[in-house]
């Protein structure tokens, strides 16, 4: 990916473009899922765009991220391609994971995206490991773990923060506090006022930032990255944000009202950034409209390509288990396919 310098005008436009792309992509994904086009389930990032884009804008191309159930936004923020993402949502052979991962497991290690994850809290240990690689190899890279407020209740994230803090690893732990862990409000899951207070337990810096403000997230992560590269260890950042959609598409959301959502929408991340850039003269209304329709076309085109793409050959189900060849897999596959009744 080309990293974004959000401190320049072109960087700001690119950040806005990526936020819009996330919203358009996930809006489309929601529609397609609603129409019964996509198998499995999808978890949308709509409302949280400023966190992913702000954080990834502060990272360089070789830096790593780990993601969550809600990974589409992180993929786009890290510069992944829409067609291969959409194809993966369809389970097509040309998807990022050849149709083996789906929405919850999109990964592109070459782009520094170590995977969306179907297990709450499983990403931070992996980011700690990527930061460990960086330290062992003496590379100038950092690893950032995105995780949700729900994951803060998971034991393994605390183990990995402790490890990263003890070893001064170049890791950044970024909680996206979208106010709900699945269907349970954050205040029912934690006794802390601010989840960033967690940092005190590990003697590392902790900040809570406005997760609806892309610049605020960018600045916090940029600072954390500097610390990491100076071998001062990890930073814990909480970004307060809001999930506009349900935990998963189709979630009836008995735990909140439309009014609750409307309050957060008044502070919408894309809308406030758009206004700011127009007020500053960085972008005009018509340029913005043009950008929005370009993105819409790109997303539509990606969806069309994905829909028309081929499904994987059923035989590919037996590929990719190991780097080495393991004869069992082929033998068993063949055995399962052989008609019964035949004398052996």
């Amino acid at each position: 990916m080309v990293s974004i310098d959000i401190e320049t005008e072109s960087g700001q436009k690119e950040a806005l473009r990526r936020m819009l792309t996330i919203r358009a992509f996930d809006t489309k994904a929601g529609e397609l899922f609603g129409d019964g086009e996509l198998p499995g389930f999808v978890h949308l990032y709509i409302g949280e765009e400023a966190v992913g884009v702000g954080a990834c804008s502060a990272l360089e191309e070789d830096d790593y991220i780990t993601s969550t159930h809600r990974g589409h936004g992180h993929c786009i923020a890290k510069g992944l391609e829409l067609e291969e993402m959409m194809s993966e949502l369809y389970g097509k052979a040309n998807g990022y994971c050849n149709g083996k991962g789906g929405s919850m497991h999109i990964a592109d290690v070459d782009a520094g995206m170590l995977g969306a994850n179907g297990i709450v809290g499983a990403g931070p240990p992996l980011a700690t490991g990527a930061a460990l690689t960086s330290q062992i190899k003496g590379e100038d890279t950092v690893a950032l773990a995105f995780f949700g407020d729900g994951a803060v209740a998971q034991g393994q994230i605390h183990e990995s923060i402790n490890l990263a803090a003890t070893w001064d690893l170049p890791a950044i732990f970024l909680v996206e506090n979208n106010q709900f862990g699945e269907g349970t409000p954050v205040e029912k899951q934690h006794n802390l006022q601010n989840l960033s207070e967690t940092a005190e337990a590990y003697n590392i810096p902790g900040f809570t930032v406005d997760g609806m403000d892309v610049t605020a997230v960018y600045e916090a992560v940029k600072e954390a990255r500097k610390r990491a590269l100076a071998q001062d260890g990890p930073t814990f950042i909480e970004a307060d944000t809001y999930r506009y959609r349900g935990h998963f598409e189709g979630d009836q959301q008995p735990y909140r009202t439309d009014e609750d959502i409307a309050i957060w929408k008044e502070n919408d991340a894309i809308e406030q950034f758009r206004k700011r850039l127009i007020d500053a003269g960085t972008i005009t209304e018509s340029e913005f409209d043009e950008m929005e329709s370009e993105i819409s076309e790109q997303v539509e085109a990606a969806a069309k390509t994905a829909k028309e793409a081929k499904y994987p050959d059923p035989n590919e189900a037996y590929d990719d288990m190991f780097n080495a060849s393991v004869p069992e897999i082929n033998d068993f596959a063949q055995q399962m396919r052989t008609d019964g009744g035949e004398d052996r």
Partner: protein
Amino acid sequence: MSTESMPSSGPSDTEEMTVREAIRLAMQEELNLDEDVFIVGEDVGEFGGVFEVTSGLVDEFGEDRVRDTPISEAGFMGAAVGAAATGTRPVVEIMFADFLGVCSEQIINQMAKNRYMFGGKTEMPVTVRTTEGGGMGAASQHSGTLHTWFAHFPGIIAVAPGTPRAAKGLLKSAIRSDDPVFVFENKAMYEQTGDVPLDEDFTIPLGTANVEREGDDVTVVATQRLVGESLELADKLAGETSVEVIDLRSLYPLDTDTLVESVDKTGRLIIADESPLSYGTHAEIATRVMENAFFSLDAPIQRVGVADVHIPFSPTLEEEVLPDADDVKAAIDRVV
């Protein structure tokens, strides 16, 4: 079936050493050969590991490459998975296999599934070394034999050496493998001695069993400690019953060919493995042989293992539940 890779050039010397020394030598050689390899685990550094297997390595390679961790298996197992996905080759020590449950999320959902789930676009060169088995009065939480769990789980290669030579050769293959490999070391074997090749390129391919002693009347396929005990038993029975002893070495993949070849010859099979008997390693071996050598069998396959109980503390109780050569002998007597 000869399976070891011994280069035609280079030193072919062997030296008598213990399993502990063979494992340490394997790690020392691989740390020397590949700077991406590092060891990580509880007390692996200055302390040298609770069974002294990593003893001295930190002095030679430093704390960056022989890393002590906090007591947090999920944290460092997960870090190993992330490190492997990004280009290093961790060798993780889990002090007792019983603790694998503590970090099973990172093993089952991350390490084992990563490559497949991402369409083959990542490699996962993690080696996990852990200790299994009873006999030390360590009671249930430090004596279990859990390898069936992980040999069963898709995406994991699982080996369990039965000789010092196998311990070195298998561990070196594990560290060089780009796939997750679990090496299950029986803690009662660390003092066992045998000839071990000194060549740093000596490896044993994962997925291969070895006929340790040829025989005609009955095949004993054994794992870990029971390999040595079965070999001694075969010596004792010589002249009376001719026992072929196979060190299974690799739990997954399983070397069906070597087992079938042996059963085709002897017609009888004893499976000796220190894990619980139900739904396990014994069942898999028996099924493979039934599928591929049913008509060669002259008698029912016999299982030697742990009745489905945990390993108790008191010496009389522990001795009662652990399988040994007497149990293998009884199994042979039932069918020969």
